[in-house]
């Protein structure tokens, strides 16, 4: 087996505090050396990838992925989802449990893990908080933990019953695994389909108020504080939520939180179908169902607040909430369209824009997709360039341009408002367990 050299890229590993131009040596699928500087000549026994001008980072970790497997394979499956992940630079994804069957028992979790040995990247399962994700009876959390889950969620649906949420948090004291409650109060949401506000009013669409999210977050924080349970807040989308999480962290609640690429980079104006611009009059592009997602794309203020939250460490990680849906499930009225954005392949390019615009630092961006989620799943070797362990790396070319279309996407679906749009910066290599599994050059 030939020895591989990643030569001359800007190597960034926040955990090891590396950010320098150097070479990474991979022998027998393991990183054996990260040099001090870059070396010009490598002998013939090395397969040299010239990565000058590119960024080399640990394989990304997605803590919130909908792989749709089992049960919804027409949208995505373990194979296509992890291939899409590899294309997006991810070498570890955590699979949300809104599948059929729901992973609410150990055998179902073990089935998933058995299948995942053949997947393109690490696929780690979540278990459901309640049986059948019905919000009524707790799943057997210890057994699910022993089977290998990395956390619990009924994602897609909210645990509305405060008592059930409290019991789940009590279990988490011992399992130490995060309880992840999809935060949308169904009563306030009241069948809302987009952010409540001036855009919804103009489009005549039912609005989802910010309070539908932050009231649940506030309640869950208070329950976590009271019980000492372990809580993780998914897809934070509102300014007020960020402020509640800030307070919770200050008062020592055992809490982490995430934000999605779309909530960091898109406002509700994307529903007009014009790249986030506000049109003078609605065009036929309006009501873009690919911009329909739960929680909804919010206002400019909220986008600014989540970016600031990420910067200040109130929000710990970026997680995609990759949510594939088929064409039929999106080519319908806005009310009927299923919520979700397909974004695992575009995520890094999308958020890198924030680095380009000096809104967040490169180090912060990379930590939020590597070491920070690695800490949450307690597998630091997945989020850092460890020597002598299977090499998981990603290479990003920040200056290339590419256009998003069905043909460039590996996902089975293509429900993204970025369809047809040009993005700057692209993942060009993904190396998983020492093997190049994605090569764009």
């Amino acid at each position, binding site marked *: 087996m030939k020895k591989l050299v990643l030569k001359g890229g800007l190597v960034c590993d926040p955990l090891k505090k590396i950010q320098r131009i150097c070479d990474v040596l991979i022998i027998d699928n393991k990183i054996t050396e990260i040099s001090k500087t870059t070396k010009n000549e490598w002998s013939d026994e090395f397969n040299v990838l010239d990565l000058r001008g590119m960024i080399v980072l640990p394989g990304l970790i997605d803590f919130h992925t909908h792989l749709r497997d089992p049960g919804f394979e027409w949208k995505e499956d373990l194979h296509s989802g992890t291939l899409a992940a590899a294309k997006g630079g991810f070498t570890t994804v955590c699979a949300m449990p809104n599948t059929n069957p729901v992973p609410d028992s150990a055998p179902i979790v073990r089935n998933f893990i058995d299948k995942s040995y053949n997947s393109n990247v690490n696929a780690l399962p979540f278990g459901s908080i309640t049986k059948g994700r019905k919000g009524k009876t707790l799943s057997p959390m210890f057994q699910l933990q022993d089977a290998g889950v990395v956390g619990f969620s009924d994602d897609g649906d909210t645990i509305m019953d405060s008592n059930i949420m409290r019991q789940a948090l009590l279990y988490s004291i011992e399992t130490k695994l995060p309880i992840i409650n999809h935060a949308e109060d169904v009563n306030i949401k009241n069948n809302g389909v987009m952010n*409540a*506000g001036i855009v919804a*009013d103009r*489009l005549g669409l039912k609005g989802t108020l910010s309070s539908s999210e932050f009231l649940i977050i506030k309640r869950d924080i208070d329950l976590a504080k009271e019980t000492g349970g372990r809580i993780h807040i998914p897809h934070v989308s509102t300014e007020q939520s960020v402020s509640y999480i800030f307070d919770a962290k200050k008062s020592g609640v055992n809490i982490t939180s995430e934000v999605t690429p779309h909530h960091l980079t898109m406002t509700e104006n994307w529903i007009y179908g014009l790249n986030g611009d506000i049109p003078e*009059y609605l065009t036929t592009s309006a009501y873009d169902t690919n911009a329909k997602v739960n929680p909804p794309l919010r206002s400019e203020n909220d986008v600014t607040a989540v970016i600031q939250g990420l910067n200040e460490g109130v929000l710990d990680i970026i997680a995609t909430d990759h949510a594939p849906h088929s064409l*039929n499930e999106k080519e*319908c009225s806005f*009310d009927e369209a299923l919520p979700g954005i397909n974004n695992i392949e575009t995520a890094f390019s999308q958020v890198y824009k924030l680095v380009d615009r000096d809104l967040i630092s490169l180090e912060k961006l990379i930590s939020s997709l590597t070491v920070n989620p690695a800490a949450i799943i307690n597998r630091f070797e997945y989020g850092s360039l460890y020597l002598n362990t299977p090499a998981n790396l990603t290479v990003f070319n920040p200056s290339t341009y590419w256009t998003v279309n069905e043909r460039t996407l590996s996902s089975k679906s293509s429900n993204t408002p970025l369809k047809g749009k040009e993005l700057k910066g692209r993942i060009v290599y993904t190396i998983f367990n020492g093997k190049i599994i994605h090569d764009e050059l």
Partner: protein
Amino acid sequence: MTYDMNLPSNHSNIDFQEGKLNHLLDVDSLSLNSIENLIQSTDLAKKNFVSKTKIPTLKGKTIVNIFFENSTRTRVSFEQAGKLLSADFINVNIPSSSMTKGESILNTIKTIQSIGMDCLIVRHHHSGVPYLIARNVNVPVINAGDSMHAHPTQSLTDIYTIRTELGEIKNKKILIIGDVKHSRVARSNINLLVRLGANITVAAPTTLLPDSWVVQNNTRNLKRVKIISHYLKMESKLAKSDLVMLLRIQKERLDQGCLPDLDEYSKLWGLSKSRFYNLCPKIYIMHPGPVNEGVEIDSEILSLNNSLIDQQVENGVPMRMSVLEFCILK
């Protein structure tokens, strides 16, 4: 309090067109110029309508009326308009109950498109469906009402009726009472009336106001519409208005917790006999229909000359004649 409907600020050179097709999806894409043209051609069309004489303007053209939601009034109005212009008219009624699960709107449209048509009129119980359809067909699409979003032909008819009965719209004091939050007619009317320079006040309980008018962090407040959400203030405004537009209350608003009951609404916000005779005996009255008699308005007032409700219905046909002509021929 005053709020804005997210109106375009400078709107002088836009015509309602999307590429080469003249869709009419909402009034927001109509320039003041096209509105004026439509009003003038409606004056002409009205003569044909009154004398029931067919004109050959759209001879050989096929118009398809596709209604995913029942509305006899609007459907018949379009049909009459089309027939007076000598167009061939096909009605397709698809009540939502009969759409089998998984059958998509676009499949239905494609089936219909295969029979050949020159214009598609769409009514749907979900906002935005006319836009979805317009993206996918190669004929002009006319929105005949899409849920809470827009009802451009009704709104144009209302403008025409006001112009005919009250004269110039600029500076007219117009009070809109009722469920603005869920009303497509209010949405389209406010857009048009504000641009035409009317002095608009909206009166409704806060629960029936659009979210962005209520939530205080709305920074795009351009002070073009006055809001009243106490019924006593509404009463004093009634006394000072030229025209009151009443909106229909849907019974489902009760289930959503917007109102305690229809009785309360009628007592607080309804145009009762005593309010009418004591406060505003000269006011003109409009209602997009159908009226819940005794809720939004006392039935006795409906038969007075103050009510323009019959004119709203009648003018609908000539206005739709102008719109069809504009969309298909221009």
